[in-house]
């Protein structure tokens, strides 16, 4: 069970959070202007490093903040947590 340092609430157990998937780069403002290939890449290809990856967690049972968490997939070490993207 991870211990995630919520910027508002402090360190909290993983069971307080909802997992929101890998953090993609910012959603294009106008997807219609994005090529098919780039859209598919944005939509389906996550960062999958054996190392730090950005992911979203919502502190759903706590303050409700959506967080971007940089977590090392080899160790679970959390390198950064920030509110929002």
């Amino acid at each position, binding site marked *: 069970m*991870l*211990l995630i340092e919520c910027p508002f609430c402090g360190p909290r157990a993983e069971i307080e959070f909802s997992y929101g998937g890998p953090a993609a780069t910012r*959603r294009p403002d106008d*997807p*219609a202007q994005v090529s098919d290939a780039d859209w598919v890449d944005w939509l389906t290809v996550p960062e999958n490093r054996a190392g730090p990856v950005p992911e*979203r967690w*919502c502190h759903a049972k706590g303050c409700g903040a959506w967080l*971007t968490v940089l977590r090392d997939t080899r160790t*679970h070490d959390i390198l950064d947590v920030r509110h929002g993207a």
Partner: protein
Amino acid sequence: MAPERMAQGGRIDRDRVLRFRFDGRGMTGHPGDTLASALLANGVRIVTRSFKYHRPRGIMGAGVEEPAALAALAGAQGQGNVVPTTLPLRDGLEVRSIHGWPSVRCDLGAVAGLVSRLIPAGFYYKTFMWPDWHLFEPAIRKAAGLAPVPDTPPQGRYEVRNAQCDLLIVGAGPAGLMAAVVAARAGARVMLADEGLEAGGSLLARPARIDGAAAMNWVAAAVAELAALPNVTHLQHATAWGWREHGLVMVQERAPDHRGLIERGWRVRARHVICATGAIERMLVFPGNDRPGVMLASAVQAYINRWGVRPGRRAVVFTNNDSGHDVARELRAGGVELAAVIDSRAGASADDLPLLAGQVVQRSLGWRGLRGVEVAPLSGGKTQRIACDLLAVSGGWNPAVHLHSQSRGTLRWDDTIAAFRPDRTAQPSASVGAADGRFGLHQALQSGAGAVAAHLGLAMPDIPQAEDAPYRIEPLWSVPSATGSKAFVDLMNDVTLDDIALANREGYGAVEHAKRYTTAGMALDQGKTGNVNVIGILAGLQDAAPGQIGTTTFRAPYTPVSFGTIAGGRAGPALLPYRHTPLTDWHIAQGAVIYEAGARWRRPGYYSQPGESFQQTIDREARTVRQGVAIYDGAPLGLYAIEGPDALRLIEHACTARYGTLAPGMGRYGLMLTEDGLIFDDGVTFRLAEDRFLLSASTGNADAVGLHLEKILQIDRPDWRVRVVNLTQQWMNATLCGPRARQVLARLTDMDLSTDAFPFMGLRAGQVAGLRSRVARVSFTGELSYEINVRQRDLPTLWDALLQAGAQDGIIPIGSEANHVLRVEKGFLSLGHEVDGTVDPYDLGMGWAMAAKKGDFIGLRSVRLRRASGLARRELVGLLPEDPEVSLPEGAPITPGGRREASEGLVTACVRSVVLDRWVGLGLLLGGHARRGERVQVRLPDRTIAAKVVAPVFHDADGTRMRE
């Protein structure tokens, strides 16, 4: 008194007698005994027959390391695979030996030992193949499994507590206690957990001295000091069995002092962990090293000093290190005749002992029990026999690195102690004392205190005075005579030196391969005394250093832990959360069959009446809606207030429809898509004011929709000025539906209910039954319908008022089954039926809900991309079985021509229509929109059913009934 109990000594309460039975024989022991010490005191030598060869086995250890003996408890507290060395003796225990038939002393299965040459490691991979494994499997399975399966749940409860601390100290031996005292005095929040029945660790078993007095005096003082401090939680008989990420350590407390509680689990979140887990003695590998009477030297020491039990009358000690010499002296002091000390080290010396340096035990002698040993020089030469009934063996000591290793800490091989010891830590922690390979008593105290001082930034405190006994070792992984005989490296799984050699010869030399091929280290003891021997043996066979061979993974649990302790109070009715509406109890009282619908709400499925069949009930409820008036409990419907200048932008970004054109007081149906362009949810959104909306979500997705909207706002659009507030639990609705709904509602409100004043898709605030209400004219049944929202506390009042006001019109409550019929008749989609996570709005013929003109919204790009590829899609159709009295099973495939081949669609729903008085269905069919009028075949295993493809609506296609 039991025959082998010494006249005095030991930490047992001799004034009290505990009576127990072993295989029917009455025996006695004392408080403070373990089952093992009591059995040994009663002269019991054989307690187990081994797994594969059915060899007799006795008690060899004194704690969790026990490599051979298992027992079973019968009666109310019955359980199998009990390790006698860790079970506190209780009055009335009914103990059985394991795996002996007809008895452990005379085991017919021992015939397996006679054919043992045929069954080396991995033999089953090479045979039992013809004609088929199934021919042999039942017999093999019968031979397997040591313990009977309990047939009733245990009497009592389990619980799990969460705990947090600055320092978790695992182990209350000298190093751990010292660490705890230093940390506690400094004011840190300390948790001390020790697997033993009482604190003291190795000091319990040997006559050590601290500050010039008996070491146990120091232990008692330390325990008392800790007990008096409010910042300390001290648990005994509590094993730290698993170390997870981020400082989470799992502890099993085996005997909590609490009524009705069998065991207690702890989830301990520790800022820092001190591993003071001690060390475990290794076996030595020689022929017959499993014969009852062969014991670990440390266990012999413990039985003499801690339990006042004489494990034999005439002893030989066999060691490769200094610690065996102390045991020899204590044996003599305990009144056991010391025949010889066999030390494999040529340079060993001890003037006070009958030492045979540079010699090894070639083999043990005896039949069921030990009668003597055959001894010879390690370098070869003349053998001699020495009579004895006890052989104390010490192969050296392994730091108990299990927890450190579970935390991802690394290990390194240390030649000076011939063992793996902790190297780098991966989580905030330190190993101290013997767990760190520092086997001296002074070293233990010093490292315990030092680790805490370093962590807390304190000056090194004064520590009590103690001596370090010398520890020198020369590894002896197996004696030369061990090849070609039964010299065990794993007793529980009956793995021999030859098995390891065979595995190595056949290519299974990697330590994980050897383990898996031979099963060494995979039994209940997880190889605590034998695994490093296996590594040493492999190193010898491969001409490598043990450090190059490496270890297998140290996996949780450190010792077996009951499933009850893991689940705690979670089992049973509290397994999963559930939700009640304010009316759930009413529904149950009315005899409704309760379904657990989406989001774990308990809702009525249908209200059966006496004498009615299921179908009759559903028909009655559905027909009442079509012809009269009914109500249903809509409490769980998801509801969100969306407020702020950018409220419209958020809704139009999240939903497919257009809302900018919506007048206040009106609502519009829309879909929510995933970014993959697939339908995720649907619902009606009302505009309350220019910048205020009410968005409804399906019951099952209500929580997910809230998360989704917040994600948009917090991640993608933090600049938007809009708030989302969850009203699902605040406002709850009862929905009044049917052609007479208006006249019933009119009796309870003075709102103008005319269609002009209150049109379809309108929302009006006012009083209903004297309650503050918001009424929405929406319909999920296709009939005139009013969704009356009141505060949660008011819903029962409203419900009663509606039933009373509608009584003269024959109002009834309906459940979700009837709702299903009504929505299918209308072709309204249902999440979980038509919407199975694979469809987009066009597939369902709802392209009209895609307001692309408004610009981008979530899912649009993907829908367009997918549809541009021109791939054929499965589309929503109506299905009329040719025989109106035949239903189409939900989920049944539609195949081309009804052939048994890949499907071209499926039936998503099929109900008995109350308006058409026949079965009607919905389905998803490849290119279905263009196939109306076609005849398709629903394929079942034993037959096909023909159905006609029609438009997916069977009642009031133009919607006048709900609009008028």
